[in-house]
């Protein structure tokens, strides 16, 4: 049920002021679980250093990192649970928070627009930009919305309406997922290139240089996969891809779905208390090769999750704010977590496969040419000035 553009913007502005849990995700338990299982389910074609138990431990912990390092943009003040939590310094810019979610209408259009997520990324290519992505998405939101709220007369523009037609309000989770997947692919490209460069090095210095680069890149790769896994995990939580992100909200509600804040209780305490790790792992299916791009598969992923929004509101747990365990709610949570592990595993495999067909270094060199031996990767070519 799509609201018209103006109504959606107004509703969105109201929701923004009362949405403290929107940027949370699965709780720590869920995120670590998603990441660990994905690593354990990697096929043997993925390099060994990603598939060890230690890699699973590291990536698992980093799966929660984007939440662990939170309080983005806030100089916290006041008290919490009777403790003084006033601080002097902010952590990060608040710009990061909307990277954990996207507010989609029930028909798959972005909040405040008629643009469907299926159009990502091609519908968001602006003139003179040949690289679709978050930049163009945000520009499209600003240009294409029906509201007139812009920088305008400062005295009449509220804080929420000021950004209500931007990525910072609607959220940019799908673009975040794509961006991180691309980084993993780039990491793997360097793994391939450095491995070959070590084998073809003509001097001990050259070999040592690339051995160091390879070790450093492996460290970065584990970090990048771990950090990326957070957002891929977010993408399977239905309340992270919907305008109904914490209760059904002020939308047509013929089925009387709950208006209570079910977001946090479901993904946090309920998962921790009721979800079985082995049950989730058992639901992760084998990798299926695909020709989809990261952009295409992310759209598919978002749409699949969006389709679970209404079923989630129909769960017995939704009626009691997930305060009481029931088999259907637990099964639902396990399926959603498994979907995240499956998507993360598949993105890692795709990143590895596609990494043979990207470029490294500067000036750019095709990895396929390095691996084929038609171009020799030297220290000068990799770190050319």
């Amino acid at each position, binding site marked *: 049920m799509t609201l018209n553009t103006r109504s959606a913007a107004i509703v969105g502005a109201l929701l923004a002021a009362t949405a403290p849990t929107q940027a949370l995700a699965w709780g720590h338990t869920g995120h670590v679980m998603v990441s660990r299982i994905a690593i354990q389910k990697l096929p043997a074609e993925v390099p*060994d*250093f990603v*598939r*060890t*138990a*230690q890699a*699973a431990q590291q990536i698992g912990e980093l799966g929660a990192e984007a939440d662990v390092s939170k309080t983005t943009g806030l100089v916290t003040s006041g008290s919490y649970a009777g403790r003084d939590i006033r601080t002097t310094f902010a952590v990060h810019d608040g710009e990061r928070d909307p990277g954990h979610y996207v507010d989609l209408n029930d028909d798959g259009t972005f909040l405040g627009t008629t643009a469907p997520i299926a159009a990502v990324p091609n519908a968001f290519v602006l003139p003179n930009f040949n690289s679709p992505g978050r930049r163009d998405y945000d520009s499209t939101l600003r240009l294409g919305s029906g509201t007139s709220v812009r920088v305008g007369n400062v005295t009449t523009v509220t804080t929420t309406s000021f950004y209500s037609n931007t990525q910072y309000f609607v959220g940019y989770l799908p673009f975040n997922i794509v961006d991180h997947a691309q980084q993993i692919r780039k990491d793997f490209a360097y793994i391939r290139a450095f491995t070959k460069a070590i084998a073809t090095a003509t001097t001990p210095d050259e070999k040592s240089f690339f051995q160091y680069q390879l070790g450093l890149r492996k460290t970065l790769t584990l970090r990048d996969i771990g950090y990326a896994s957070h957002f891929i995990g977010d993408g399977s939580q239905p309340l992270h891809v919907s305008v109904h992100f914490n209760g059904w909200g002020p939308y047509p509600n013929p089925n009387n779905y709950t208006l209570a804040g079910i977001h946090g209780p479901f993904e946090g305490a309920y998962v921790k208390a009721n979800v079985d*790790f*082995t049950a989730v792992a058992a639901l992760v299916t084998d990798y299926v090769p695909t020709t989809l791009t990261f952009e295409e598969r992310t759209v598919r992923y978002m749409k699949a999750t969006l389709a679970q929004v209404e079923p989630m509101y129909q769960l017995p747990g939704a009626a009691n704010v997930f305060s009481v365990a029931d088999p259907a709610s637990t099964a639902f949570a396990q399926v959603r977590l498994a979907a995240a592990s499956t998507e993360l595993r598949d993105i890692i495999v795709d990143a590895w496969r596609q990494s043979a067909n990207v470029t490294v270094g500067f000036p750019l060199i095709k990895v396929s040419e390095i691996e084929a031996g038609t171009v020799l990767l030297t220290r000068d070519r990799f770190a050319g000035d």
Partner: protein
Amino acid sequence: MPRPNPTLFLTAIVAGLTAASANAKTVVFDFEDQEYGAVTPLTSTVDGLTATFASATDAEGFQITSAFYQTLTGNYLAGPGPDFVTGNTLTISFSQAVRSITLNFAVDTAPTLTLSTSARGGATATGIAPGGSFLYPEGVLSFAGPRFNSVTLSSDALSFAIDNINVTVPEPSAFALFGMGLVAAAALRRRATA
């Protein structure tokens, strides 16, 4: 000539063996004396027994880490090391001969861990996923047999981890008692056949 007393002869042997068994001590290496992040080769000395842990195939093949498994508590020793090399073996050398060894282990991409000793014999154990919080197989590997000075651990997994290494060390006094038992038995036999 008096006939040898078989009962006395057997008693002397059993007394020696019992004394040796009763006086053996158990030494536990749990890596709590190691710095987090320390890499092989590394040594640990507990109750007078020194164990050296070394990777046969890589200079820094294993490292001290923590907080992942259920039966490997506190610090434990795990591969791969900081250079990410997988498939390493691990050799544990003791400063004096030991009679038995039992350890906790965890593996990743294959379920078994194999132990071979510097003497003869060895053992293989298969881990099982403990369930609940995580899935990697964990298990207990034990071996007892002829005294040995070192063991080598290997697995088809990409990596494995170990902790709580219990070894049984015969006490010198036990050897002495066992020797006395043998001497007594020999004396009895000589007297019986003289």
